[in-house]
C-alpha cells in the first residue's frame, strides 16, 4: 500500500519534509530578526523610520505570499542579480524562498512585537528613564524583555503559520512537502492515502510547536 513512496527519490518523502523544516527554521530566524528591526522602526522617535515601517507592513501584508515568492525568483534574481551567492538554481531557489518568506513573515512578526510593546505599561519606561537609562538601555533592559514575553503566544502563532506557508515555496520549484505531494497525487492512484500522509506530516510539525510554545507563553507571561 505504501510501496509507491519508495519510487520517489527526488525528493524522498522524508527529504521533502526535512526541506519544509529547514525552510521554517531559517525563515523563522530571519523573520524574527527583520521583524524586530521593523518593530523598532515603527516605534522609533524618527518619523521617517516610523513611516517606512508602517508602509512596509501595510504593503507586504496585502500582497499574496505567492506573488512575493515568485517575484524573488523572476525579479530579484533574474533582473536585480540577487543570486544569494549560488549559481546552482536549486540552492538559489531555496535561499530565495527563505528571503521571500522572511520579507513576508517579518511584517506579522513586527505587528506581534509592536502589540507586545503596547502592553508594557507606560510607568515601566518612565521609571527606567527616571533612573537615567538611555533609549536603547530602556528598550533592551526594560521594555523588550517584558514585551517579548507577552508576544510569545502571538509569535508562536506566526511560527505555525510560517510552517504552513513554506508550502508556497513549491511555486518556484523548491522540493518541499507540497511539491512532492503535487507530484505524487497526480501520478498515483491512492489520492486519499497521499492526502492523509501529508496532512499527518503537517499535524506532526505544527502540533508540538503549538503545544510547547503555548505552555511557554503561559509560563513566562508577565503577571500584572
Amino acid at each position, binding site marked *: 500500500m505504501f510501496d509507491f513512496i519508495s519510487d520517489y527519490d527526488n525528493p524522498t518523502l522524508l527529504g521533502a519534509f526535512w526541506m519544509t523544516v529547514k525552510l521554517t527554521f531559517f525563515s523563522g530566524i530571519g523573520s524574527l530578526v527583520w521583524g524586530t528591526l521593523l518593530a523598532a522602526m515603527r516605534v522609533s522617535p524618527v518619523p521617517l523610520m516610523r513611516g517606512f515601517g508602517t508602509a512596509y507592513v501595510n504593503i507586504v501584508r496585502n500582497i499574496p505570499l505567492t506573488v512575493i515568492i515568485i517575484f524573488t525568483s*523572476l525579479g530579484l534574481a533574474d533582473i536585480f542579480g540577487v543570486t544569494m551567492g549560488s549559481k546552482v*538554481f536549486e540552492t538559489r531557489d531555496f535561499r530565495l524562498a527563505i528571503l521571500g518568506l522572511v520579507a513576508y513573515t517579518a511584517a506579522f512578526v513586527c505587528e506581534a512585537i509592536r502589540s507586545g510593546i503596547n502592553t508594557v505599561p507606560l510607568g515601566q519606561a518612565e521609571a527606567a528613564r527616571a533612573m537615567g537609562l538611555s533609549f536603547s538601555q530602556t528598550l533592551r533592559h526594560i521594555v523588550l524583555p517584558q514585551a517579548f514575553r507577552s508576544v510569545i503566544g502571538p509569535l508562536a502563532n506566526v511560527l505555525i503559520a510560517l510552517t504552513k506557508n513554506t508550502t508556497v515555496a513549491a511555486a518556484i520549484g523548491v522540493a518541499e512537502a507540497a511539491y512532492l505531494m503535487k507530484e505524487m497525487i497526480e501520478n498515483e492512484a491512492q489520492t486519499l492515502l497521499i492526502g492523509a500522509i501529508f496532512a499527518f506530516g503537517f499535524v506532526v510539525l505544527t502540533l508540538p510547536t503549538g503545544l510547547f510554545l503555548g505552555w511557554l507563553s503561559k509560563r513566562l507571561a508577565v503577571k500584572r
Partner: protein
Amino acid sequence: MKLRKVTAASAAVLALALTATACGSDDKDSDSAGAGGGDKIKVGIKYDQPGLGLKESDGSFSGFDVDVATYVAKELGYDADQIEFVETKSADRENALARGDVKFIAATYSINEERQKKVDFGGPYLLAHQDLLVKSDSDITEATDLNGKNLCSVTGSTSAQNVRDKLAPKANLKQVGGYSECIAALQSGAVDAVTTDDSILAGFAAQQQYKGQFKLAGLKLSNENYGIGVKKGDTETLNKINDALEKMVSEKAWDKAVQDNFGPANYKNEPAPKIGNIVK
C-alpha cells in the same frame, strides 16, 4: 441607527462581491460541450504560446494551432463564429477529452505512447523538434555546450529532463511556470538557453519586443509529432479530422497557415507530415 448603517455597509460589500461572481460566470453556462451537430463546438488550445495558440489583446486567438483547429472545425461543419476556444493546460488535456469538455484539442499536443493509451490522435499535422533558443551572439551550438550553463524550461516539462538526462548532465536547470518567463530570463541574461519545441521557441523569438535578440540553435534533439487529440474511441470525429487535415495540406491552406504564423519567426519548418506517419 448606527448599527443598521454598519450592517448595510457589510451587506453592500458582500453584494458587490457576489455581483463580481455573477459577471465571471457567463461563459461557463453552456455545458453542451461540443456535443457534435450542435450550434457550438468547443476546441482546446493554448492561450500563452505566440505563433501556436495565443490569446490576443482583443480577445481573439491566433497561431498555427488555432488556424489548424479553425480549418478542421470548418470541415466538421462549424463556422469560425461557432467555435469556442477553451484553454487546455498541458496537464488537463487527457482529462478534458475523456470527459468530453472539448471536442478536440490542438495545443502543441505531441503524440506519444503514454498518451495514445488515453486519447486518440488525428494527424500529425506538424513535425517539430526540441531545440534551444539562445541570444543572437551566443556561442552555444551543441547541446553539450550546455554543461555548466544555465538552462530554462517549464516545471514538469519533458524537454528539460531530456537535456539533463541525455545530453548535458551538468546543465544548471531553472524551472519556471511558463515559457514567457523563461524568455524574459534569457533576455535579462539570467539563463543562457531555453529549451522546448522549436515551434514554440520560434513564436516567442518573433515577438515584437524580442525581435532580433534571439536565435534557434537548430538542433533536432527530439521529434515532436503534433497531433489533434480526440476522445478515445471517437473514430467518427477522428476520421473526419484526418480527412480535414489532408484536405488542408492539398488545398495549400496548410502552407498558408505556416507562412502566416511561422513566416515572421523565420522558422524552418518540416514539410507537412503524412497522416499517421509518426516520426520516432
